[in-house]
């Protein structure tokens, strides 16, 4: 479970990107964070994803705070508990589908090479990319590339998936397919999903939506976005 208490983030001592954010996310919850550009959505998920620990306030992940942790323990927690899906997929262009999905496993100590193959084949099946293992990302459609990115995010069996505009680079039909996949992961594996989007239709796939504007969080207030 994630608990954010009075978290603020200031850039260059002037620009306040987040101010006094309070947010609880339960295990297995599918949360959408909506808000206009520059509202602080990305800043918030960077903190939630342990990509950024330069903030004030408290953030507990499974009752543990990592604000003062060193790089090694932050990296290990990230690798073990969190999977990321990005808007523009962020796949390595000269790596095959299989190799892209393998990346998180390289840095987790628990896997042997044979284990890796089994796990990777399993997730490739889950995201429906059988037969594409040896393709390069450039040989795939946008939707397929995002499926590779999702496979990469879930290969380590993370507790939380953090998705930053996962449908932003896709047409709406493909976007819906991807959202179906997220929902499936959430329902089947009870994976917590925190998704940033500015598309109301996409946000509707989530159980709960919160809104952010000018660095402030508004729980379940549609009007904040419409204003």
């Amino acid at each position, binding site marked *: 479970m994630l608990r954010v208490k009075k978290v603020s983030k200031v850039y260059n001592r002037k620009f306040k990107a987040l101010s006094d954010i309070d947010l609880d996310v339960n295990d297995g919850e599918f949360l959408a964070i909506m808000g206009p550009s520059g509202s602080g959505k990305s800043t918030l998920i960077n903190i939630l994803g342990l990509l950024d620990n330069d903030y004030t306030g408290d953030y507990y992940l499974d009752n543990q705070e990592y604000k003062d942790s060193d*790089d*090694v323990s932050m*990296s290990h927690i990230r690798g073990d508990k969190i999977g990321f899906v990005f808007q523009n997929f962020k796949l390595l262009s000269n790596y095959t589908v299989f190799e892209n999905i393998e990346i998180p496993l390289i*840095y987790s100590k628990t896997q042997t090479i044979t284990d890796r193959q089994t796990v990777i084949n399993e997730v490739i099946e889950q995201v429906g990319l059988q037969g594409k293992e040896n393709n390069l990302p450039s040989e795939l459609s946008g939707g397929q590339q995002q499926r590779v990115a999702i496979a990469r995010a879930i290969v380590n069996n993370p507790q939380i998936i953090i998705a930053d505009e996962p449908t932003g680079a896709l047409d709406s039909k493909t976007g819906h397919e991807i959202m179906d996949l997220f929902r499936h992961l959430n329902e089947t594996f009870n994976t917590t999903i925190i998704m940033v989007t500015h598309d109301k239709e996409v946000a509707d796939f989530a159980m709960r939506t919160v809104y952010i504007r000018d660095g402030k969080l508004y729980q379940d207030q549609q009007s904040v976005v419409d204003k």
Partner: protein
Amino acid sequence: MENLTIALRSIKKNKNRNLLTMLGIIIGIASVICILAVGDGFTQSITKELGQGNTSNKVTLDYQANSADSADSSGFTSGDAALLSDVKGVNDVKLSNYDSTVFTNVSSQGNKMKTYIGAIGKKSDVNRTQRSSLLIDDNSYNVLISNRLKQKLFGNDSANGKTIQIGTDVFVIRGTFSTDEYSTNVYMPKKTFNHIFAGKSGKNQAKLTVESGQSKKAVGQRALKKIKASGEYKHEGKYSIEDPTKAMKSFQKVLNSVTYFVALVAGISLLIAGIGVMNVMYISVSERRGEIGIRRAFGATGKNIRNQFLTESIVLCVIGGILGIIIGYLLVLLINAFLPFKAVITIYSILISLLVSCAVGLLFGFIPANKAAKSSLVGLLKEE
């Protein structure tokens, strides 16, 4: 292992760029291989030579006359030999000449010339003149004269069968040879030479055999001190201890200066290569910021990233090093055609070369690798 695969993949992706970067390493390592091969070859040949010549218990004293005129009449005498054999630690003393020549007047038909006269007694002397083999082991009064002397004494006439006078003795000319201005102009059989000039040619070397267990250096110094104080011709010339390693030392000196020069070239090219490696690694790091961000997001620690780029820079340098070793080997083959001894590549020099290339990779790859490791994660992921 993962790092090695990633490194090879990245190097392969930018083949041309990396090959150019390796060029400095290749030149540097090839130079290192050559220096070490020449040095090792020289050491091996010298060790072999010293092992063959049994000079281990011999000390040689030299006598150098102050003027050319006294050269023939001065030197070590039998009295000096007795004196030296009394020196503590000396087993026996043998006097000899290192050159069998005298400087005296040669005349014929009223023409006269003062010149060096040499003896030919050994097979090794034969190559001095083409027909000198006639004179070996002979006590006849036959001589060979140089073309220069022939010109001076007989002009353009043939000299064969004609006679010349040396001192009071008359010799028959059996042939001529060409020579340089200052060389010996007359050769005669060694036996004849010894007979005529006995006592005239000074013994300019005293070879001392040192008793076992005695220090060669100390005995040599004692003998030198004694002969300097009481030598018969101490006022006509100078005594010194011959250094058998002198020739080696002077060659070593030349070799050293060549080595320093090549080492300098190697050093500079490795430095430039290192800077090239650093540059290419900086480019690689900035080109792959997105990749670093992804790896970091999925659990790679800063250390993982640093090691990945360090491996890449080391692999780059080691590939360059291996190519350098191959080119160095070819160069050594070429050098061997011009060297008086054989340059050899040892396992040790190959290991040194590989170690040096690793070190260059490590040293110059560290700063870019560290930069990659320390980059802000949010910044890395933001870029596209």
